[in-house]
């Protein structure tokens, strides 16, 4: 991923900052700049998520693309945050213990790196709560 592409959403990725529509009360992570329900009637504001939630579904990646190959096997999951929105992330845990409904909390971790001298991508992963 190029530096600007990562950098422009760095705030969201580092702090689990998404958005909220004040018209309908829905939360969004990844952030949306247009509420899909209210569209032009929506009023989007920033929202910092608490970072706690539960595993909705998961898998263990055994074969990854080249960038993530050294990390295999690793757990990935769809997490439902307490605010109700869902997101995809890695879960750092014993891969045999992950299960549906497992309580998790967010943590700031290295996601990947573009070679030895390239940009290091940080962001949100989850650990058992």
């Amino acid at each position, binding site marked *: 991923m190029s530096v600007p592409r990562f950098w422009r959403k760095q705030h969201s990725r580092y702090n689990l900052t998404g958005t909220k529509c004040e018209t309908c009360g829905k939360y969004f992570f990844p952030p949306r700049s247009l509420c899909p329900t209210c569209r032009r009637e929506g009023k989007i504001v920033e929202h910092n998520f608490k970072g706690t939630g539960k595993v909705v579904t998961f*898998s263990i990646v055994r*074969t990854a*693309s080249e960038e993530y190959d050294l990390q295999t096997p690793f757990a990935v999951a769809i997490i439902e945050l307490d605010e109700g929105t869902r997101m995809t992330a890695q879960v750092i845990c014993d891969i045999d213990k992950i299960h549906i409904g497992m309580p998790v909390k967010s943590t700031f971790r290295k996601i990947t790196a573009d070679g030895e001298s390239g940009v290091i991508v940080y962001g949100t992963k989850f650990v058992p709560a």
Partner: protein
Amino acid sequence: MREVAVVGIGLTDFGEKWDTSFRDLCVEAGAKAIEDAGMDGDQIQEMFVGNMSGGRFVLQEHIGALIADYAGLATNHIPSTRTEAACASGGLAFRQAVSCIASGTQDIVIAAGVEKMTDVSGGETTDALAGAADREWEGMYGVTFPALYAMIAVDYMNKYGLTREQLAEVAVKNHYNGARNPIAQYKKEITVDAVMRSTLVADPLRLLDCSPVTDGAAAVILCSLEKAKEFTDCPVKVIASTQATDTIALHDRRDISTLDATVAAADRAFKMAKIDRKDIDLVEVHDCFTIAELCAIEDMGFCKKGEAGKLTEEGWTALGGKLPVNTSGGLKSCGHPVGATGIKQVCEVVAQLRGEAGKRQIDGAETGMTHNVGGTGATVVTNIFRRV
């Protein structure tokens, strides 16, 4: 709107085609379709080419003009358009061609699909395919395409009690059919045991749950129904062609293991065709992974949610079953050159309705359906066909 018919079909062999280039694959399928329709290339008025990722797989864009050129039609200056919706790119090309004729814009149109996937490494292929999902918020966390479908499978198994063996039965059935299809990538039967022993890719999905990386192309010739008799004694009428969307990311879906875009596209198709589910004699569904076939059968409304695994185990979807599914071998055994798949499905249904499907022929098939998915269900195209 005018009625539309398919009058010609053409397919290359599917597989790892080291000796054949991207453009040669597509031209071969197109030439076979024109030959099958018994027409001359100069009669083609417009072209649509489904292709997911020429840019990533062979570093080639501007696919519409490239294929028109190498097909010898660029000197006629016909309009040629590339369509893209990940693995549903071929489905889009077909639907655009149908609309083009139904609207009266053109009388004779070719719809093709092509993908050349083996010119890059396995890792690059995995990464290119991950672009079918949300690159920034799914792919960026190392989530692969098989992992997304694996998450659908985990959700499905938890809700409906599907067993790992029932999932394997989908692959076994599709390989049985593929073994009877001369163009299939894997003309080889497999056992449940072989699926269960194959390498884990993304738990619970194993290698033999996954469709392969494939080179291949497919093409069909469409024309107005009134013109169809000029070219063939057995035209196949397109009685519905529909398309639907859903959220790009799996995590934003209403229900993880229901493809609402499949539900919407299929509902529209049955309404458009004015027929019932029970009128369908066979269906080609998008089994990019074994779990996807089960979701497809249910979400198209052929059975209740959670029943497809048991029905597959009982032979309901087999060649001699109540509703044969993926007689071609599906994406699993026939192969999945992503941009070509939506057109290949049409070729299979048309061959079946004409009674030309050889060892996998469904006796007396009159009405058939196709179902083509892009991503994890963000785009779906369905079509219904009837023998005239």
